[in-house]
């Protein structure tokens, strides 16, 4: 069978798709966010299953996770992990904020500037 189940699974339905937001691109983004949210929920459920199975097999009591007290070094690493995650997640907003402080010149203007003196 020569079918790609992943691409076929994502096939569009026949019929024009309605858009509800005034900017369809915002709605497209919402669809990406919801897909991410679903996969995150799936991951959390999987993690939960893992924790419960570990507990059921007496390998790791759940309190060990709830009351987890990392060493000072581990705590620092974990805090840095959160910071890194947030910077990755919020890149576009952080970049916008940076540009607020130092307005950038348009590429067209720079192209023109660097082209000055070349040719007719």
């Amino acid at each position: 069978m020569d079918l790609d189940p992943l691409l076929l699974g994502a096939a569009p339905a026949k019929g024009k798709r309605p858009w509800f937001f005034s900017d369809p691109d915002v709605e497209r983004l919402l669809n990406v966010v919801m897909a991410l949210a679903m996969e995150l929920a799936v991951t959390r459920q999987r993690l939960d299953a893992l924790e419960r199975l570990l507990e059921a097999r007496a390998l790791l009591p759940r309190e060990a996770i709830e009351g987890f007290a990392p060493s000072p070094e581990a705590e620092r690493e974990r805090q840095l992990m959160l910071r890194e995650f947030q910077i990755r997640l919020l890149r576009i907003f952080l970049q916008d904020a940076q540009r607020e402080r130092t307005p950038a010149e348009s590429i067209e203007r720079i192209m023109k500037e660097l082209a000055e003196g070349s040719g007719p």
Partner: protein
Amino acid sequence: MLRRNMSDLSSVSIPPPPPSWRHVGRHGVFPAAGHDDTARFDFLANLNSLLASEVLPRVRDAYERRAVPAYTEAHGHPPRDRREAHEALKGERLWQTFSALRRCSMEMRQQTGRTLVLKQLPELIAKAHAYNEGASTLKLDPTIEQPRYASAVDIHCMPGGYHAELVPDDVSAGANYDSGLFATTAGMLGRFSDGGGRAVAAWLKREYPDFRPRRILDVGCTIGHNVVPLAQAFPEAEVIAVDTAAPVLRYGHARARSLGVHNLTFMQANAEALPFPDQYFDLVTSAMFWHETSAKALPRILKEIGRVLAPGGLTLHLEQPQYTPEMPLFEQAMRDWDAYYNNEPFWSVMHELDLKRMLLEAGFRGEDYFETTIRALVDRELFPEAGQGQEDYGRTPMWIAFGAWKRG
């Protein structure tokens, strides 16, 4: 976790969640699913519940508070019918948010079910084949063409509708439909999504204990989930279920066989031209079928039902409630949502039809017409705390059952 209103902590309560998809009824051709597939369906059922319980009531508030005044301002009068109410809603941000999320949820549901099914398609086809091979109770007719009402758009936004065949002997449309119904309806139709059929069978047994149909016909059966309970309720009867789409018939037949039902034949046929002699059946049913036909096809289907029904026989149909002047315009407009945004193009017009007149025009008599309300019996296995889902217009398991006896 959802906290309803932080200023009123005494009333903080978490509404009962929908049952996990883990409890979906499994049968011989039901797709195998792992942890993540289950979690995806659970995510979607919870999202639908959340939209229905937390967002939809706010949309109703916004309709009254903002959309109606804005519409009145622009048109000199408030919305006068559900189409004008729909127009009023289109400019309301909260309706836009609700709609964008609901459409997104429907599309994710299709992707989840289809991907699950297509990954194991060869295995599913083999399983169905084991039940179907050589069976005289599955009658496919490749000359049957898909009616326009079934092919103009993909109903429910199911890519390929009920009928598309990706490979020979395809059952994917049936398996996908079956796998997602439980999540879309938050389990309210029961483990086998057969709450409608079970309710009809129970109603018939209760209201007409002496009614013993010898032959039963179900039109527009798809995977047969609502006719299987009838076949089980009347084990002596010869039951025939027709649909135009082969993939759901193959799947439905194998499903019924694996559930131990053997008095049920699945036949590929167009209900506008039923391949049966006059007066052949004592009972002709349909469930959630009228709204998936058309203004041209439906009267022809009803005439055919009248023709194949024996004197003294009964025709009985299940549908979502009709639009009445008493139904608030907001509710009507939201019930119409699936018509416009979930590819149910006959839904809106069908739900304003005079059902009685439709049957009169097909030859039935006014005094033989009846109409009643039927609710799916809540599955205690799934809802041990007597759970009742919130109103989710167009998806709620409460129907009108209507029809007519044919004079002897």
